[in-house]
C-alpha cells in the first residue's frame, strides 16, 4: 500500500492512526445502554447513569498529510461506519507516528 515509487507527482506518504467513535444520537433509543444500567444493581454499583453504547473503529490511513488522511476517515465514518439517521460519530487522531517506511506492515 505504499505509494508507487516514481509515480509522477507522488509525495512520500505517512501513516496516520485514527479512532472513529460511533454512538447513538441523543434521543434515539439505546437498548444496550439501558440493559447495562439495569444490570448495575446486580453488580452492586450505584451512581452510574446515562450509559450509551456505541462502536469504536480504529484504523490506519496512508496519505500525504494529516488533512488528507482525515478527509478519508470522515468520508468512511459518514458513509460506512455510521448511519446519520440514528448515529453520530466523532473522529480522534491517535497519532501520526509512522512514516511510509513502517507502513507496509502486513494487514
Amino acid at each position, binding site marked *: 500500500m505504499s505509494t508507487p515509487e516514481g509515480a509522477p507527482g507522488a509525495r512520500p506518504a505517512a501513516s496516520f492512526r485514527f479512532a472513529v467513535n460511533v454512538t447513538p444520537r441523543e*434521543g434515539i433509543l*439505546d*437498548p444496550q445502554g439501558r440493559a447495562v444500567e439495569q444490570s448495575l444493581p446486580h453488580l452492586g454499583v450505584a451512581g452510574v447513569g446515562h450509559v450509551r453504547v456505541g462502536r469504536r473503529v480504529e484504523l490506519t490511513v496512508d496519505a500525504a498529510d494529516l488533512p488528507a488522511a482525515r478527509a478519508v476517515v470522515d468520508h468512511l465514518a459518514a458513509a460506512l461506519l455510521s*448511519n446519520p439517521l440514528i448515529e453520530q460519530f466523532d473522529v480522534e487522531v491517535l497519532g501520526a507516528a509512522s512514516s511510509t517506511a513502517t507502513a507496509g506492515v502486513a494487514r
Partner: protein
Amino acid sequence: MSEPAVPLHQALGLTDEELVAIEARLGRAPNDLELAMFSVMWSEHCSYKSSRPLLRTLPTGGPDVVAGPGENAGVQRIGGGLAVAFKIESHNHPSAVEPYQGAATGVGGILRDIFAMGARPIAVLDALRFGDPGDPRTRHLVNGVVAGVGGYGNCVGVPTVGGELVFDPSYGGNPLVNVMAIGIVREDQIMRAAAPGPGNLVVLYGSATGRDGIGGASVLASATFGAQDPSKRPAVQVGDPFAEKLLIEATLEIVERGLAVGIQDLGAAGITCGVSETADRAGTGIIVDLDAIPRREPGMAPFEVLISESQERMVAIVRPERRADVAEVCARWGLPCAVIGRVTADGDVTVVEGGLDGEGRPLPGARELARVPAAALTSDAIVFERLAAPPPRRRPAPAPGVRPEPAELLPERGMDPGAVLVGLLGSPNLASRRWVYEQYDHHVQTNTVAGPGRGAAVLRVKGTRQALVATTDGDQAVSALDPYLGAALSVAEATRNVSVTGARPLGVTNCLNYGDPTRPEAFWQLREAVRGLGDACRALGIPVTGGNVSLYNEAPGSAIAPTPEIGVVGLADDVDRLVGPAFGAADDVVLLAGWAAPGLGGSAYADLAGGGDDDPPPLDLAREAALQGLLRAAIGAGLVAAAQDVSRGGLAVALAEMAIWGGRAGHFRVAVAGAPAVALFGEAPSRALLAARPDAVTPLLALAAEHGVPLADIGTTGGDRLLVELVGEGATGAAEERGARVADAIDLDLGDLRHAWEQGLPQALGGEG
C-alpha cells in the same frame, strides 16, 4: 415555526378538505394538539381513507372465524379449544431509510398485533422485495433487512419459518418489507382491543416514551419521500427485541390470569391511536393523564408524547381492583407500568395536563389540552372515493391475423432447454434462499416440522396431532400486466402451496402494496387487486381475516409493480399425514395434475429469455378449487409420497427442485402441444406434481377423475440425471415447420443443477456465501 409558510394543517399533511371535515366533526376549529392527533389518525396508514370502501367488498365470514378484519389480527378456530391468530403488515418506508431497524421494528410490530390478541406468537414469515441485486444499494438494503428480521425475531424467540425474496427493478427506489406473524391462543382467552367499562383504568406498560418516529405515521406513510433531503427524514424508531420478549411474557401472563378486559398494542400514531381505537370499539371514551406517561427524555411536548411511535409498548384496560396484580406482573418482567387514564362514558378522547384524582377526574388546576370524539379519530374518519383509471395500453395491438408466437421463443433463440433450466435455477428469483434463512432461527419453540426452503412451512401444535401450514406469495409480475389476475393468482398460489402439503387453507391475510392513490392509475390497480382477491377467496371458500394496505410506494420517478402479498394459514388434523415436495424412493411414478395453458407473460422465463408481448396464462378459479380438492383428498388418503405445485419457472423447475431436494432425479416425458417453452417453463396455474408408489397410481387416477382434474403419468424417479424428453406434436413438427431448431431434451446432472441452485443467490449478491 415562527413564520409558517403554510398553514399548520397542511404542514401536518392534512388537506383543506380534511380540515373542513375535522371542523364539522368537532363543531369548532381544532387546536394545534388536536390537529396533530387528527393528522396521524387520518393518515392513510391509520385511517385507510382511500382503501376502506374497497376492503368492505372482501369476504370475511366463515364458520371458524372468531375475529376478522378490524381486530389486531384475524383469529380462526382450529378445534380442541384452540385458535390461530395471524396477520401480515408492511414496513416498507422505514426499511428504505434504515434497513436494519426498519425491518426489525416491522417484526416487532406484527408480533405485538398477535400477542395483543392474547396469542403466543409461534412463527414469522417475511416477504421481501428489492431492486436489482447487482446494485450496491440493493445489497446494502438486503443485508440490512435480513439482519434486522433475524436480529429481532431470533432474540424474541419466534422462529422465522418462511417468506419470499424477489428482485425486480421496480423496487429499486422502494423496497418492500412485509412481515407476517402467527400465534396460538386458547379460544376462551382471546383478547379484544377495546376499552369497555367506564371507570376502568388505562394502563400503559413496556418501554418509556421517547421522541421516536414523531410524525412517522403521517410523514412516512402518506408522502412520497425524497431520500435526498435529510431534514425531511423522519426520526427512525429503534427496536429493542429484549424489551419485546419481556412484553410478550408479561402480556400473556396478564391474559392468562384474566387481569385485563382489553389490550391494544401501540404502533403507528402511538398513544393517540391506542386510546381512540379502544374507546371507539367499546363505544366509550378515555381521559388521558398526560403527566402519568413515563418518558425517556425530558422536555417532550404534549403532541410528541401523544403521537410518539416508541416501540415495545402496550395498553391494557384494567379493572381498578386488578391494578396491583398488573403492576406486579410488569415489575417481575422488569417493565415500567403506569396508569395513564380512565375509561369514560362520554365517547371522547380527552387529554389532561395537571393530573387526575382517584376517580379519574381532573385535579383542581389541571388543564384540558384536547377533547375529540373517539369516533372522529377512527371509525368516523374521512373516506375518499378516489378516481380510478386503467393505464393506457402499453402493448401494441398485434397486426391482424398475426398473434405473437411464444411458441417460437425457445427454439428461435437457439437455446438449449437444459441451459435455460440451469439459468432459471440459478437466477436470483429462483435460486436457493438459504443465504437468507440461515440467518433466521427457524427451530426455536421446537415446532418446526418443515422450515424455510421448500414450499410452505409446517408447524406442529404441541399437545395435539395437528399442524399449521403457512406460506406467503405475491405475484407482482403478472400484477404489473393485469392487477386483477395478479391478485387472484397470488391467492391461488398461496392456497395451493398449503393444499399441496395435504392441509386445508383456513384463511387469508393480505398486504396490498400499491402506489399513490391520488393517481387514478395507481388507484385502479388497487381496486382491481381487491376485486381479484375477493373473487379468488370466494371461489376457493376462504375468508380474508385481516391485512394491511401500504400506499405511496413510489420513489421519485418510479412506482413499484403493484404487489398483492398473500399470507395463508392452513390446518392439518394429522401432522404425520402431510407430505413434502422432495422425491423420496426410486421408481416412484410422477404425475402431473391440472391443466396446461398458453401464455408466458409475467413468467420467470420471460424475465430471463425475453417474453415478448405474450399474455399471462389465464386462471380458472373453479379448476383451481378442483385441483386443491384433489390434492387434499389424495394426500389424505395416503396415496401420495411427495407433492409440489408448479409455479415460478414452470414444470421443469418444479421437477428439478423435487430432484434436488430429494437427492434423486428421474426420467420424464413432457407433452408439448404448442411450444416447448410453454410446456417446460410456462407458469399456467392450477397444476401440481405428485410422486406416488406404482400401486397408488390406479386409485389416484380414479380420484382425479372424480374431482374432474386431468392427471397424467409423466415418468419415474431414479438416478442422478434429470432427463426430460419432449413428446407430442409441438415437440417436433410445429417448430420445425417454422424453420426453428428443434428443442433438445433436457439431460442434466443433478449435481450441476444443485450447484446452480445453491450458488445463485450468493453470486447475485456479490459472491458472498
